[in-house]
């Protein structure tokens, strides 16, 4: 019975496609309303995305979007909503940048140290929410929102001269001490002819994706995690220690979140400064939803999102407000979740019908 059910596959693909069409329609309407041509806008974006250097940028942003989305997805699979990826990765990036900038070690050790610090900080920060949820019954949605704000305050406090920051010459930006070469990840020449290099960290991203897939689908731990996500009560009865599971999976999600800042930190900026990218955690939520928590789906979602982000840079030159892309991203998320819900309901009915038909059984069950 392991045959592929064509109808079910179609239904699965239909949802994101439907959502994309809807989002495109909304964006087109907004463009039309403000007196721009949707077709020209799209053409400009695609043309811009054809350039090698744009493609490098798309891959680079997708690298950290992917990590953020996987971090969120780990929580989702367990029915935990880690809104705190944002705070987790920023705190992790700051502290690992500070540690990385403070030491000189041989490259593998140096990199390992930075990664370990980032993973540990992210994991521990997220574990606070996990502990609160497991032992005090505090909703992780609320606690991670609070922890995001707290981490913003802590970062502002730490990132001042005299604590972790040093002034950058020739600007009013301040940041952590530069990570020496031994702690940097060299870029890759993946796109021929581009004048930029792809983050070497993209390999780590891909490994994390594979690890995520294997862990969830093939291991006992992953089975327990998914079981808990599907039905906590059934998981308890099956012997899963749900409290421990909540803490572990939250910490795991946070550990993955801890990696989010590293592609940028080790591949481009080498320092955590005031202008370090923020908000990737929230993007991660959107992409995880878009990709249905599936490792490949998330990758596609990350690339799409990243394409929209990067190719929108050309729009200002074309006289089109590039915020149109944000509208499109927002409406994609909303329509994607609506579409998935509709598809879920439809396929449930489909499956019940299928079972009913296969058995020719027609009576004897109350709703």
């Amino acid at each position, binding site marked *: 019975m392991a045959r592929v059910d064509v109808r079910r596959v179609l239904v699965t693909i239909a949802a994101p496609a439907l959502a994309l069409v809807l989002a495109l329609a909304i964006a087109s309407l*907004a463009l039309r309303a*403000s007196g721009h041509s949707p077709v020209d806008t799209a053409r400009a974006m695609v043309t811009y995305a054809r350039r090698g250097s744009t493609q490098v940028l798309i891959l680079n942003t997708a690298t950290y979007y992917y990590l953020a989305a996987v971090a969120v997805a780990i929580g989702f699979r367990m029915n935990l*909503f880690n*809104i705190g990826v944002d705070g987790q990765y920023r705190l992790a990036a700051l502290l690992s940048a500070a540690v990385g900038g403070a030491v000189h070690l041989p490259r593998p050790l140096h990199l390992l140290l930075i990664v370990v610090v980032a993973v540990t900080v992210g994991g521990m920060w997220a574990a606070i929410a996990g502990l*609160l949820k497991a032992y*005090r*019954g*505090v909703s992780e*949605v*609320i*606690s991670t*929102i*609070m*922890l995001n*704000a*707290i981490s*913003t*305050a*802590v970062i*502002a*406090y730490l990132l*001042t001269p005299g604590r972790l920051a040093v002034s950058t010459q020739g600007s009013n930006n301040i940041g952590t001490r530069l990570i020496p070469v031994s702690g940097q990840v060299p870029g890759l020449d993946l796109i021929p002819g581009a004048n930029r290099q792809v983050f070497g960290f993209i390999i780590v991203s891909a490994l994390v994706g594979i690890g995520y897939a294997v862990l969830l689908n093939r291991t006992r731990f992953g089975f327990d995690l998914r079981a808990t996500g599907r039905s*906590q009560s059934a998981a*308890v009865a099956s012997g899963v220690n*749900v*409290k421990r599971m909540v803490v572990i999976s939250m910490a795991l999600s946070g550990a993955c979140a801890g990696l989010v800042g590293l592609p940028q930190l080790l591949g481009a900026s080498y320092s955590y400064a005031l202008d370090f990218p923020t908000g990737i955690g*929230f993007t991660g*939520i*959107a992409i995880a*939803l878009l990709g249905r928590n599936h490792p490949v789906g998330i990758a596609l979602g990350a690339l799409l999102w990243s394409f929209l982000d990067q190719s929108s840079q050309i729009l200002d030159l074309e006289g089109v*407000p590039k*915020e*149109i*892309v*944000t*509208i*499109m*991203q*927002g*409406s994609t*998320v*909303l329509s994607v*979740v*609506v579409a998935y*819900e*509709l598809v879920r309901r439809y396929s449930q009915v489909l499956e019940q019908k299928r079972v009913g038909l296969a058995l020719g059984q027609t009576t004897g069950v109350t709703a």
Partner: protein
Amino acid sequence: MSTEVAPTAAPAGPRPRVRATPARTAIAALALVVLLSLVRAISGADDLTSGGAISAALLLAVPIAMAGLGGLWSERAGVANIGLEGMMILGTWGAGWAGYQWGPWAGIVAAVVFGAVGGLLHAIATVVFNVDHIVSGVAINILALGATQFLSNAYFAGRDGGSTKQSPTVDPLGTVSVPFVGDPLASLEAHHWLLVSDVAGILRGLLTNLSWITVLAVLLFPLTFFVLWRTPFGLRLRACGESPTAAESLGVNVYRMKMIAVVASGAFAGLGGASLALAASSFYQEGQTGGRGYIGLAAMIFGNWRPGGLAGGAALFGFADALQLRGGAAIHALLLLVAVLVVLVGAWQLRRRRVVQGGVALACGVAVLVIYLVTTTVPSQLTGSVPYVTTLLVLALASQRLRMPATDGMPYRRGEGG
């Protein structure tokens, strides 16, 4: 979601419940004033109870309170709403957009309408399409940010005083004061007498130079209480949050009630946005909300999903905000206040034989006290986190006493209950 065994049909006596009667509330408020006064006298941080600080606290509390009221309406009807931030953003933009063209009152109306549109979107997603409430909220926050940025680009950029991130200036809304009390209170306050000057300062802050939005916001609290707890409409709305199947079985149109509640929720958040754009400043600015939608949610949880408690939470967060803005010794003195309060909570917990919670609270209180004694200032960066830390502590230490609507955040389909 808890793993505890649900209490079954064991013989149940009425549980002791501490109800917030008017007398108890008054006593608590009085005690707080006395405490503030003592802390002020000991620390010498006069700003703690100055009219200016209280006035600023009130102004800053209003947006939080309105977001909280929005959350209250929505969650009482069973729809979790973390899209409040986005609805508030829509409100600030609407206030700026209508405000600079047709005056501040039009700005208020537009803010309410824009917020309500955000609410409507959330309602359609969660009630009609049964989308996960948190997911929808996140999407709305993203969407609202993008939409306002796009709209600013189209409507504000190039206008006089406007830019892609800011609306042109809106005329001031005007303020109102209770007549004949300002000067006497100010002079009383200037004496720095224990208790007397403190009360005078607090009253001066609460009674003079009030923005009309503040007045409106304050009035919405008794109104909300009346509507939700004293009318048939309110009963039906709350029933949808406690047991939608029961409401459905008695002929209540659960979908409609939830829709109304969530749209109203957006309208409140929009009004909160208006207070930021029109009272706390005089234009829309990108990022103006600064996460206040989330703080409003926190204030609502802090207030145990009740208007009175929410008002208290909003006041507390507004006060912390105000002291932070005004800087100086007051924020350091706040540490002393927090230390005393937490120690009191710990002592109370210990009396109720909750050894662990009481012990933790006591230890926290003592730790804060030590920090107060060995430091002279609080780093300004950290004071912004006070509302968040407070909320986390409240949730961690008092979660058993919180009672959220029984089906808050859960999906509901007609005809699937029972």
